[in-house]
């Protein structure tokens, strides 16, 4: 990879990964807040209102960082991927513009009202503002995923004489199956993050013996939602996503599992290190047949290895792709186990007394962020060496006149700025959590 391509990719990868730490939490919390506001309206109980108020404060802070770190992504299509924008903008420009017009205006209008307008609006309208934020943020997610889905599996386009991609079928592009499956998987991932954060705060207050009513409410809500979302992330959404990759990106599937040789009874390896140079997997602990089952629903199915594909179509970073996939799947499995156990104890009324599990819940909240990031790495590294799968190579999509001196300058700028931003965010959120649910109006 030449230097310019490397820096374009590094900067986009870094800014996108950092950005997505925030929207996954706001999209998850948006659902939590809507649930709490709904419960408050139905029961009239103050504890739901108080809980909603606390999470709205965290939401506002997180949303602001999500907004400001999202701006660079939209710009970077043009600044860093100019030839991609020129050649694919005739298609993906639609969804990116729709995100601005349909989602961002909705969100920005109601955000201030949600965060500061409780007294001015009254209970019902305030709940409506929460619903608007939920709709806006989840709509925004759809447009982004639909854009990405086109890059993963292009449909609804035609290729013009000059090689650029033109939109040919709007609804085939906007509502293709890949977009819907990927969206379902992405959003369940976001709810996992939101639920784990809610559960962690509940566990923290329970362990501290503070705010008993709020501690219990958050713990219960986080565990129930966390179990449901963790299960849905694996089945049906993750399962369906896996089958799509197997069908449309078989070379990516082979690389995700470090599989060089084709054959039946394909295994999933619990662990192991891919050795790309010698085309083998070191220290594997295989579970035979599982990959065949994931991909095709039968343990004996033949799964093609990388040997079935020309080398210039292999993903360019097989090692990272392999680890991304294994981290995502491994953590996802652990989430089901942890939340399943917590739900069982909750049902038996023992969760609040089982301190080791409360510790685990309190400390588990960073891992969904890692799992979501790893999942996006699987999607984006698995798509390589293509920007638009099968149509436009990543190396042919860069801003070729921009020189590395410019990209390194801006990449370093982002590194510094985002370090400070991340530290300030953590500091302010930690303050809110330490203040507790009733700290401020």
């Amino acid at each position, binding site marked *: 990879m030449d230097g310019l391509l490397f820096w374009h990719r590094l900067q986009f990868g870094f800014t996108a990964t950092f950005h997505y730490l925030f929207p996954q939490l706001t999209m998850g919390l948006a659902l939590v807040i809507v649930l709490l506001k709904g419960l408050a309206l139905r029961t009239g109980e103050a504890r739901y209102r108080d809980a909603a108020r606390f999470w709205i404060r965290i939401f506002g802070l997180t949303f602001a960082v999500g907004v400001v*770190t999202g701006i660079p992504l939209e710009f970077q299509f*043009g600044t860093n991927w*100019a030839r991609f924008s020129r050649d694919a*903008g005739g298609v993906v420009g639609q969804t990116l513009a*729709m995100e601005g017009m349909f989602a961002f205006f909705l969100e*920005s*209008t109601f955000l*201030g009202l949600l965060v500061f307008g409780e007294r001015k609006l009254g209970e019902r309208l305030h709940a409506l503002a929460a619903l608007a934020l939920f709709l806006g943020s989840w709509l925004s997610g759809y447009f982004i995923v639909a854009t990405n889905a086109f890059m993963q599996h292009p449909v609804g386009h035609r290729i013009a004489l000059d090689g650029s991609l033109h939109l040919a079928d709007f609804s085939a592009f906007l509502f293709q199956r890949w977009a819907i499956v990927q969206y379902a998987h992405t959003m369940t991932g976001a709810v996992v993050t939101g639920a784990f954060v809610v559960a962690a705060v509940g566990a923290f207050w329970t362990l501290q013996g503070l705010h008993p009513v709020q501690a219990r409410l958050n713990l219960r809500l986080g565990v129930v939602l966390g179990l449901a979302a963790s299960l849905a992330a694996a089945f049906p959404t993750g399962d369906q996503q896996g089958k799509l990759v197997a069908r449309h990106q078989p070379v990516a599937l082979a690389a995700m599992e470090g599989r060089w040789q084709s054959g039946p009874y394909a295994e999933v390896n619990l662990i192991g290190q891919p050795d790309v140079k010698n085309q083998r997997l070191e220290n594997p602990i295989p579970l035979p047949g599982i990959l065949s089952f994931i991909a095709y629903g039968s343990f004996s199915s033949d799964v093609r290895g990388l040997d079935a594909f020309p080398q210039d179509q292999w993903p360019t970073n097989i090692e990272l792709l392999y680890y991304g996939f294994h981290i995502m799947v491994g953590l996802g499995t652990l989430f089901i186990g942890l939340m399943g156990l917590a739900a069982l104890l909750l049902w038996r009324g023992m969760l609040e007394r089982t301190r080791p599990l409360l510790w685990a819940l309190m400390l588990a909240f960073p891992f969904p962020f890692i799992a979501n990031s790893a999942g996006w790495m699987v999607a984006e590294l698995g798509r390589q060496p293509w920007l638009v799968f099968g149509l436009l190579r990543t190396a042919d999509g860069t801003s070729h006149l921009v020189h590395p001196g410019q990209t390194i300058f*801006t990449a370093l700028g982002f590194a510094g*700025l985002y370090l400070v931003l991340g530290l300030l965010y953590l500091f302010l959120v930690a303050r809110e959590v330490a203040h507790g649910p009733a700290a401020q109006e």
Partner: protein
Amino acid sequence: MEMFWFWTVAVVMALYAMLDGFDFGAGILHLFVAKTDAERRQVLAAIGPWWDGNEVWLLAGGGTLFLAFPKVLAAGFSGFYLAMFLVIWCLILRGISIEFRSHLGDGLWRAFWDGMFALASAAMPVLLGAALGNVVRGVPLDGSGFFNIPLFTHWDVTNPVGILDWYTVLMGVFVLAALSCHGALYLAWKTDGPVRDRSRAAALRLWVATVALALAATVATARVNPDIYARLPHAPLAWLGLALYAGGLLAAITGLRTGRDLLAFAGSSAFILGILAATAACLFPVMLRSTLDPAWSLTAYNASAGPYALKAGMRWWLAAFPLALGYFAWLGWVHRGKVEAGDYGH
């Protein structure tokens, strides 16, 4: 169809300048017109419900440009690479300044974010003005449809040009004055007491500076890109824009003198929309002018997406645009009248 999208992009960008313009102006001026923490919060309450939505017009404009004229977005964004990131970083710093400020009551914490907010707010109009200057002056687009220029070179408008030269800096300073005046008029309209008095006094001085710089920019533009004025007789929309421009300036000063704050702010808004509309009308159909060969300029006709995309996009865009205006109207209704101190922030 191409004409529809050219004007869509122009209208959205003009709305962006007019809307985010007033909160840039308020951000710049709040250090001077609001002295105490309560007064600062009054300013933030005036722009608090708006600034995020105002900024969305920029993203909407970028998205619309992407949808309809991907070649212009590709060439412009990569060509002005470093300046684009200065814009991005300013927007990030502004956003977190206004959000983080209210989370701590500490005086030093708030002073820091107030200063950051003012700096980022001042840099934005300069960058936007320079961007407009670059569009008017032209860039060294080659036959492949791309270019890339440094931030500055020899500060002259001849090749090798930089993003900043005497002309684009002049445009930056002009826009800085115009949007500061615009922000002052907005604050005069939405606030009460000492903040309003100081805003009115500032607006008066800034109005004089804006008029002087507008004249200078007009003369300079004739030197940098004479074609613009040659098109004037054939561009009826430009005359409408110029009428708004002149009428807006007059309304602003009249409103300011007679204490009719809304008239003054509306005048300043009309001035901004008018000058941008007149510029767009005189440039049409050129979107990015090549200084190397006029044939290499990117126009609404040679840089647009396919006809099907333009048509499909128009269908949903015509529904989305009134929806967005509706949100703004409703928000304006909710926040009608002068702000009450303590409306915004914890």
